[in-house]
């Protein structure tokens, strides 16, 4: 049945081949034909990553440089804007574009590392719970329930208030967010994978537990965990923004999108661009990641191709 499907797919359509632009060709190569939304989302994510990594090369001003003669100057596309500050300036006359570029770097860094921490920690604990069962599972799942019943933002505020604030602690705190989701997911998937005949088969072939997980169980649950990570990543970026907005996140002179947003709140009527620009960047970033994550889930399942 599926064999026939692949045969139909293989002969290239002559008309499409001629008209294909370089973008179309690239999309075809990545298995993206017809997926315009996914393509746009990917391009946007690529652009954001590029800016986060190399943006400092194009940064017009240092992000902390004050221009007290040009406070709250509107961006170039609004009345009274000038090319001197393309995205305008904030209350201290700092260039919003430069701050966006700088803030993006930290937000992406925190988002990616934080997500990785949560995914690895949560998945590991979930697998441990499913493997050992018994009291290990009881204890870990109880921790999960505790974590679920705690409003995470209060939890994060409490830790940051008690332990103090540094970038490392902030990353760890936002990383812990969502570990219980990975743990639950990994546990239930490992439990069901362990019931599958192919796990029994390789066990009866004499494969060790570690290798069964590495070679057979993990690859089969990885897709779902990666999708969970893409669902969680926007949440982590938003959490950092929220904490920074509340003043407990990134501390000046460092800056992140959330922190710019927090400053912009005070000038929402007078100078909406300070808050709207980082807000827009975050909105489209989280949306793009969610779209790509959805596409990735289908893509990672060989039985759906």
């Amino acid at each position, binding site marked *: 049945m*599926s*064999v026939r499907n*692949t045969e139909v797919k293989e002969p290239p359509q002559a008309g499409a081949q001629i008209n294909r632009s370089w973008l179309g060709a690239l999309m075809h190569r990545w298995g993206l034909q017809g997926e315009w939304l996914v393509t746009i989302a990917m391009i946007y994510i690529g652009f954001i990553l590029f800016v986060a990594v190399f943006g400092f090369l194009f940064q017009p001003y240092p992000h902390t440089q004050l221009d007290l003669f040009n406070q709250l100057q509107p961006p170039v596309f609004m009345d009274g804007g000038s090319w001197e500050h393309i995205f305008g300036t904030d209350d201290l006359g700092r260039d919003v574009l430069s701050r966006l570029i700088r803030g993006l770097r930290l937000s992406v860094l925190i988002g990616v590392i934080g997500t990785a921490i949560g995914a690895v920690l949560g998945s590991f604990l979930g697998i441990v719970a499913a493997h050992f069962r018994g009291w290990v599972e009881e204890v870990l799942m109880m921790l999960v329930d505790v974590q679920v019943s705690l409003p995470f933002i209060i939890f994060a505020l409490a830790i940051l208030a008690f332990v103090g604030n540094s970038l490392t602690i902030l990353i760890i705190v936002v990383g812990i967010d969502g570990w219980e989701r990975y743990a639950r997911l990994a546990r239930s998937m490992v439990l069901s994978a362990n019931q*599958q*005949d*192919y796990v*029994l*088969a*390789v*066990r*009866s*072939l*004499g*494969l*060790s537990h570690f*290798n069964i997980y590495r*070679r*057979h169980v993990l*690859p*089969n649950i990885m897709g779902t965990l990666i999708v969970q990570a893409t669902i969680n990543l926007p949440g982590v970026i938003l959490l950092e923004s929220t904490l920074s907005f509340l003043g407990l996140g990134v501390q000046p002179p460092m800056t992140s999108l959330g922190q710019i947003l927090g400053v912009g709140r005070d000038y929402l009527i007078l100078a909406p661009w300070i808050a709207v620009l980082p807000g827009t960047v975050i909105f489209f970033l989280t949306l793009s990641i969610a779209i790509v994550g959805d596409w990735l889930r289908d893509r990672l399942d*060989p*039985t759906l191709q």
Partner: protein
Amino acid sequence: MNKPAAIEPEILMEVRDLVCHFTGPRTSFFGKRMIAHAVNGVSLELRTGETLGLVGESGCGKSTLGQLILNLIEPTSGSVSFLGQDITKVDKQEWRRLRSEMQLVFQNPLGALNPRLSIGAQIREPLDIHDIGDPDQRPDKVLEMLEAVSLPPHLLERYPHQLSGGQQQRVVIARALINGPKLVVCDESVSALDVSVQAQVVNLLADMQKKLGLTYLFITHDLSIVRHISSRIAVMYLGRIVELADSKELLENPMHPYTKALISAVPVPDPRARASRATIRGEPPNPFNPPSGCAFHARCAHADEKCRSQLPDFRQIGDKHLVACHHAEALA
């Protein structure tokens, strides 16, 4: 059937008084846990090169017995010896080594294959696990095995879901046989396949047996398949073997009422044969709460007071014909 009768075949595997309990839910909050007697005192032996058919209805413990024999689950008591060595008490390393000697072929071949690994990688896996031969020569060995189960070499790169059920089962068989095991437990291995494919896979199993001198424990609920491949047949009911004899003897001269009912349930292509069918009433008993005496008494037309109170011995009647029924002689 597969060995000349003159030579008494050596005993490959011997199972003695094997018992396996599973604990179920508690009867009440403070109550004891219920215990299911999945396998309840089974003794049998497998001779080198033979095929022992193990038949019984679902839930009678035949799959559990298969996994106990492969030492994939631990028995509650009793012993399983493989070539004279008690394999229920081996250490981890020895257990792993024994994995090359005995293998399992599953009912659902698609479930038995990892959906994310190519066919070639999965057939090769046993060689890697036990580090057999030169790694450079393993692909050749895989190709050889693929040919032996009559699959075309271009399937190596395919994934399990791209194959038909029969092809998948051939892959499972290839993977089970690549390390050259002595014993293969086929757990309902053809039950999930189309009838036409069933015959092909059964023939393949028989061919491989001849070629490699394998011993099979062939677990099934389908007597019409087992008669084609088995040299002896054991009938299992609620965790116990109730009848054991050579295939021909058992099918032509069944003594246990349960066996009789099973045999008469096999469809016969003769409309007039219908009249003489022995039937079984009722449902299989609950293994958490087995009946007293003979486990079959509640469904047996010939049961009397003795059957309800006394467990029948597994005794020999006639030539190599073992049966566990108080009234075997009267019913034969």
